[in-house]
């Protein structure tokens, strides 16, 4: 079987758009709108019916989220950067939702480098703005000549690599999850075909296996041995699947072994990795801006 790992699917192509030339509307754009709709709905829902006393459970969650966001920004940047709270919060929630919708089989907008690069460029502009504001434009330019003027190209590159590294760190982690999930899925599909193909090639063997499984399950259920009971059920199912596989058609194409196992890797790459990357991106955003503004 062939496994192909692609980028975003191109939904539509517009030729000869002014200024941009050929524009390809990709899944990334469509899904980022979908994510925006989810977040906006969430915000409007959580932000409605707020009361000062006698708060609802929903409001408690909303307040906790806002309080921890403010605390996060204050911890990393101090109290002078409160106007960046919406930016940090927005990047965080967008990243988390984008990373985790892949659990439901959607395309993650964050699996496209352009999404992270867009965020990182915004952060880069802010970093540069704060550097110029803190030191003055001349001193900012002069800073590239430190400690020797020959190092200026390297300094410029280092400056440019800040957003690139931020974007690539986030993108790479999400991509690795996607790649590994695809590989595991492919491997399990292949394994299913190999196992069931071998077993199902002989009708008698498949029948014997499933019959043995049923007998084992029934006997062990009576004896109360759970492990063997489960083994019996698995054997029975294996026989049935082999028969189905042998029967061909649509049912034969279902990768039975791929049911369940990818959820385990998904739990790590989509949930844990997704949340951690969002957190890291926001931490770097706050720290870089704070650093640029000086102490």
């Amino acid at each position, binding site marked *: 079987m062939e496994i192909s*790992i*692609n*980028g*975003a*699917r*191109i939904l539509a*192509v517009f030729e000869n*758009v002014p200024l*941009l030339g050929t*524009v*390809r*509307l*990709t899944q*990334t*754009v469509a899904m*980022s*709108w979908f994510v*925006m709709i989810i*977040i*906006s709905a969430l*915000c*409007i829902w*959580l*932000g409605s019916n*707020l*009361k*000062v*006393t006698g708060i609802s459970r929903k*409001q408690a969650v*909303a*307040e906790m*989220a*806002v*309080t921890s*966001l*403010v605390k996060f920004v204050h911890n990393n940047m101090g109290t002078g950067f409160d106007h960046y*709270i*919406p*930016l940090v*919060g*927005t*990047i965080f*929630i*967008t990243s988390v939702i984008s990373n985790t919708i892949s659990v439901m089989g959607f395309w993650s*907008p964050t699996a*496209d*480098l*352009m*999404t992270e*690069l*867009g*965020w990182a*460029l*915004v952060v880069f502009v802010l970093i540069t703005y704060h550097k110029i504001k803190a030191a003055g434009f001349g001193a900012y330019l002069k800073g590239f000549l430190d400690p020797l003027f020959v190092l200026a190209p390297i300094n410029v590159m280092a400056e440019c690599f800040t957003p690139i590294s931020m974007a690539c760190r986030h*993108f790479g982690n999400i*991509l690795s999850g996607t790649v590994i999930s695809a590989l595991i899925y492919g491997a399990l599909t292949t394994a299913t075909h190999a196992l069931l193909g071998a077993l199902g090639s002989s009708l008698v063997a498949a029948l014997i296996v499933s019959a043995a499984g049923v007998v084992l399950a029934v006997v062990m259920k009576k004896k109360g041995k759970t492990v063997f009971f489960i083994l019996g059920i698995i054997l029975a199912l294996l026989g049935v699947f082999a028969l189905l596989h042998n029967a061909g058609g649509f049912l034969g194409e279902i990768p039975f072994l791929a049911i369940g196992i990818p959820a385990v890797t998904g739990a790590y790459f989509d949930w844990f990795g997704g949340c951690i990357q969002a957190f890291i991106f926001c931490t770097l955003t706050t720290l870089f801006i704070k650093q640029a503004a000086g102490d």
Partner: protein
Amino acid sequence: MELYQSLVAVEPATLIVTICNLFLQMYIVKKFFLSKVLAILDKRREETDQEIVQAKNAKAEAMAIKATYEENMKQAKAQANEILTHAQKTATARSEEIIGQAQAQAAQLKEKASAEIAQEKKKALNEAKDEISGIAVAIAEKVVERQLNEADQEKLVSQFIENLGGAL
């Protein structure tokens, strides 16, 4: 046929859309969620602060009232003590005065009584003198059976009383 981008593709349109999306999303998050929740949090903090200040004021007020009350109590106690002391003093003085008056009155009464007794005694003595002299005259008249002249009579009586006085 389905078209795919390559795994890592640079697509300016997507980049621009992403940046625009970020700002739009930021605006929505801020307007519908962050500002509202922060406003509520601020309002609650303000109300709590206000309540604390009010409680502090009430406490200060209560303490002031307590201090005034204690001061009043102290004054009242002092006053009561003073009144008591004064009353005791007055009572002592009055009793002494009364006793003094009583004693003086008693002395006066005693004196008066003594004087009266003395007078009565004198009066009785005189009466007795007169009566005795009368009796003596009568007896003498009877004895002598003759009429003495005034001078003899007087002399005789005085002589008799003198003798009587020596006997008395």
